[in-house]
């Protein structure tokens, strides 16, 4: 038989090795292995693994670990004398547990549901935290790997993950600190074309110009090619397996040629093993750094100290023994030498590789703080689920007082009883774990797309996850089971058998109240947070931005666009039916892309102290986006910088009283190459997200900077219009890929993080409410059991149902109000802090709180009402008889 490549789970094999008697070990392992292989080929890997575990479970029997009988000491039928079976008592416990759980189905269901929900959240959170902590931890000597980053000190500090391009080179040449220094310039979504005779295939993929040392610093192994030389010569490239398969299918990629930007040809000289998911490096194509000057002469030159481009990063592995402060001490020398006149001061710093993933100032995707918050939430969910379990289990304890009495009379010790109830808890928590695992596996794909991660579950090889689940199970069992176990084991047999157990012997009523208050406070905080976020998002999406964002298509221009090409394309598209206005520009009024500039105003000798965002755009910009003029007139159509439009923020920052005063003043920008007078002032519009203030803006006709066509269309027949536009565009750029986006969609992307947070908080508030409701149910059951007699007496003495119900209502109203009194200020404080991230924000009004309070009351009512009513409607004869 052909044997498959899979091996049975190692930990399971070890388990068997450990428990099996030595003379059976080899045989059993061999049998299991053989069966596993057969099943792998027949059923696939997963079922084979499960069946492997099943077989192991079925193997468990005293015969598995019993040593071989020694012939001298025992008669030959020795096997018939076995010691007392330790499993017998345990199996009795299990049987009793199963019966008990079966007869209290609601109780079992609630407990398992609560625990399972808490645990599946905990498992997912554990996986997420571990996933993030594992980022880029697989490089050799990673404690010596650093990224050089820039702090720009102006009015406030600006953090940049990149450095001026020449820095890496001079640092490598001047100092011996770095064992390896590598610069890498990454261009996302680059145009890659494959030419095969007449056939032309186009792709958009990330590409990076990398110095060879990059692969010396980072542990990304090559499957083919030599990493020391693969990128040395100009025109060489390394691609990942994934890209190789995408471009060249099954063919050997080595020696194949592709084109970047239809401009530079690269020959593949190496194939990278696919990059691990837990790396921030996602680029699939690496090309020789020597070719950078053909693409961006400025970036590749040795004196591009003037500015920082985000694409350029510099990594360094220091020699052993070199300290960070030693290195950072030499950086200011470069600033002095190469940037003597610039006003904004660069401070270059070393950032440890381990921080790259976590420092959001430098675009790290996940902050450590958030992982902590998540862990705490997970812990809280588990803790409340346990607490609820304790509540319900002790409320249940009464029903079992007779059983405990009988067991004690028959000689059961305290310890035995305790372990019995613990094993019962074990049954529940095991069931909960299994459900939680299934749930976690089901939610995982959703969580992955939600957090933009690629986590995967493999229970059989993932020892850390397994031990986490095991430990979780043990801890939950002990936490949840030990208190009810102790309470039950403490029962006095005489009192228990006589049915004279009083609630006082169980006690802890106030602890329960406190738990409920905490649970409700947290639910309410989450609800308030949710409502505030929803309101702010609605405000951000619906508020007037100062320009039209509806029905505008942003169409990027192709590469190598000549002035003539642009003009004809614009006029062709304007002629299409359904197109209302067209403007050539650098970016939309609100965009994450901005070209910030220091300008000189009105022939002053000093730069102004604030950055100005220069938006290159033609004369149709204002009408296309519906911007309004506050003073002056629109710019005239032309190709070079002749006139400026500025916004009101610009005039305000220069302390003009009215916009009118700025008209006619001269601006010099882009190092003095763009000089022109201001002819008009537009009313303020939001040029960034609501997180940021409105910047000073200057609009001018500067056609080298045009990169998109903004097209205002009539939405009535948008499909035909779109295809006509696509046709016109593709005719102009046959070798490039047509992509367009509606402006309102790209503006909605400003708030991606918030949207994500909103969803997360929705999920957590649902879970918190659910678990809180379970806790409430536990408390009401407990109260009902405690007050059986009180209710009976009240009814006998003539109390109406409503009066008696109020016993419960009073209790819960008080608890919710207390919870609210705690939650409201905390939520207000937290959400107010959150809103501070927005320069334009809503007010948190009182309705939010009223809504929250009302909804928690409603939830509590739904949870409690039925159980309370059942308690109240009980026949007093029954409740009072047993005295």
């Amino acid at each position, binding site marked *: 038989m052909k044997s498959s490549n899979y091996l049975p789970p190692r930990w399971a094999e070890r388990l068997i090795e450990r428990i099996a008697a030595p003379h059976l070990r080899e045989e059993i392992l061999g049998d299991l292995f053989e069966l596993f292989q057969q099943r792998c080929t027949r059923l696939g890997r997963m079922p084979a693994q499960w069946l492997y575990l099943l077989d192991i479970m079925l193997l468990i*029997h005293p015969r598995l670990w019993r040593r071989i009988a020694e012939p001298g000491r025992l008669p030959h*039928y020795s096997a018939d004398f076995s010691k007392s079976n330790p499993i017998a008592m345990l199996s009795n416990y299990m049987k009793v547990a199963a019966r008990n759980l079966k007869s209290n189905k609601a109780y079992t269901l609630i407990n398992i549901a609560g625990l399972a929900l808490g645990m599946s959240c905990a498992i997912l959170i554990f996986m997420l935290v571990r996933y993030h902590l594992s980022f880029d931890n697989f490089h050799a000597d990673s404690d010596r790997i650093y990224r050089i980053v820039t702090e720009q000190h102006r009015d406030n500090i600006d953090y940049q993950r990149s450095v001026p391009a020449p820095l890496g080179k001079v640092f490598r040449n001047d100092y011996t600190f770095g064992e390896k220094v590598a610069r890498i310039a990454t261009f996302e979504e680059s145009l890659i074309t494959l030419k095969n005779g007449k056939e032309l295939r186009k792709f958009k993929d990330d590409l990076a110009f990398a110095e060879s040392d990059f692969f010396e610093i980072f542990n990304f192994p090559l499957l083919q090619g030599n990493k020391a030389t693969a990128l040395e010569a100009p025109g060489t490239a390394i691609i990942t397996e994934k890209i190789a398969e995408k471009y060249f299918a099954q063919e050997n990629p080595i020696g194949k040629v592709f084109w970047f930007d239809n401009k530079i040809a690269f020959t593949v000289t190496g194939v990278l093993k696919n990059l691990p998911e837990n790396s921030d490096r996602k680029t699939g194509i690496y090309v020789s750094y020597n070719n950078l000057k053909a693409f961006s002469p400025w970036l590749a030159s040795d004196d591009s100290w003037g500015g920082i481009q985000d694409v350029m990063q510099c990594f360094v592995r220091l020699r052993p023994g070199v300290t960070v402060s030693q290195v950072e001490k030499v950086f200011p020398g470069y600033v002095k030498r190469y940037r003597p006149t610039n006003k904004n001061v660069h401070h270059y710093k070393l950032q440890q590789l381990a921080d790259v993933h976590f420092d959001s100032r430098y675009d790290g995707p996940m902050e450590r703080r958030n992982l902590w918050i998540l862990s705490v939430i997970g812990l809280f969910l588990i803790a409340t689920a346990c607490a609820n379990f304790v509540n319900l289990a002790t409320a249940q304890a009464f029903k079992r007082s007779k059983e405990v009495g009988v067991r004690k009379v028959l000689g059961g010790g305290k310890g035995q009883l305790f372990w019995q109830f613990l094993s019962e808890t074990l049954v529940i928590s095991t069931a909960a774990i299994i459900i939680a695992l299934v749930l976690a596996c089901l939610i995982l794909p959703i969580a992955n797309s939600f957090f933009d991660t690629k986590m995967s579950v493999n229970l059989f090889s993932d020892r850390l996850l397994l031990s986490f689940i095991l430990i979780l199970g043990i801890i939950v069992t002990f936490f949840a089971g030990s208190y009810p176990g102790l309470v039950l084991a403490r029962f006095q047999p005489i009192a228990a058998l006589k049915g004279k157990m009083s609630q006082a012997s169980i006690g802890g009523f106030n602890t329960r109240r406190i738990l409920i208050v905490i649970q409700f406070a947290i639910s309410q905080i989450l609800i308030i947070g949710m409502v505030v976020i929803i309101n702010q998002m609605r405000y951000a999406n619906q508020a007037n931005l100062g320009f039209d964002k509806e029905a505008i298509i942003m169409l990027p221009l192709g590469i190598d666009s000549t002035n003539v090409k642009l003009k004809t394309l614009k006029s062709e598209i304007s002629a299409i039916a359904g197109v209302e206005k067209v403007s050539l520009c650098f970016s939309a009024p609100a965009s994450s892309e901005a070209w910030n500039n220091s300008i000189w105003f009105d022939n002053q000798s000093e730069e102004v102290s604030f950055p100005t965002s220069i938006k290159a755009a033609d004369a149709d910009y204002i009408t296309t986006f519906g911007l309004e003029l506050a003073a002056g007139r629109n710019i005239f159509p032309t190709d070079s910088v002749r006139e400026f439009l500025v916004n009101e923020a610009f005039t305000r920052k220069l302390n003009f009283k009215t916009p009118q005063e700025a008209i006619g003043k001269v601006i010099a920008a882009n190092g003095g190459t763009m000089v022109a007078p201001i002819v008009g002032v537009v009313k303020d519009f939001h040029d960034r997200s609501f997180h940021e203030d409105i910047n000073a803006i200057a609009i001018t006709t500067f056609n080298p900077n045009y990169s998109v066509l903004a097209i205002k269309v009539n939405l009535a027949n948008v499909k035909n219009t779109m295809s006509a536009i696509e046709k016109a565009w593709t005719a102009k750029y046959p070798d490039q890929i047509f992509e367009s986006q509606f402006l309102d969609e790209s503006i909605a992307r400003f708030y991606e993080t918030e949207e994500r947070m909103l969803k997360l908080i929705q999920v957590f508030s649902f879970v918190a409410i659910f678990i809180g409701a379970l806790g409430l149910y536990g408390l009401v059951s407990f109260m009902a059991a405690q007050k059986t007699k009180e209710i009976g007496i009240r009814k006998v003495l003539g109390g109406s149902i409503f009066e008696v119900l109020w016993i419960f209502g009073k209790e819960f109203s008080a608890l919710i109000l207390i919870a609210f009194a705690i939650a409201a200020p905390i939520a207000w404080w937290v959400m107010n802090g959150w809103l501070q991230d927005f320069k334009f924000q809503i007010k948190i009004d009182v309705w939010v709180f009223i809504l929250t309070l009302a909804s928690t009351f409603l939830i509590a009512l739904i949870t409690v009402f039925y159980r309370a009513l059942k308690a109240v409607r009980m026949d007093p004869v029954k409740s009072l008889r047993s005295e």
Partner: protein
Amino acid sequence: MKGTQLGEFEEVVLLSIAMLYDDAYSVAILEALNKRLGRPVSLGVVHRTMQRLEEKKMVKSRFGEASAERGGRRKRLYIITMAGEHALREARRVRNELWDGISETAFGN
């Protein structure tokens, strides 16, 4: 004597060992039983039964060759002893006698 009694499952296991003759080891027996009994039989049950049979001296075992499909582990090959053969024949004899004693009308209901 107790040693000569065979349980129902012991009997089928012993018979499969006899049938497989030269290649009687646990996985082969397991397959044979699964096919013939029409109910899933677990490895654990087969193992325990064979241990019991060996203790009753009805089978003998020796190690076979190691092979890759068993992850480099040896098989334990079983062979029936005289006592085993005797017990099987005894069991068959008893059954045959009982069958012979059943009258035609016994199944007529």
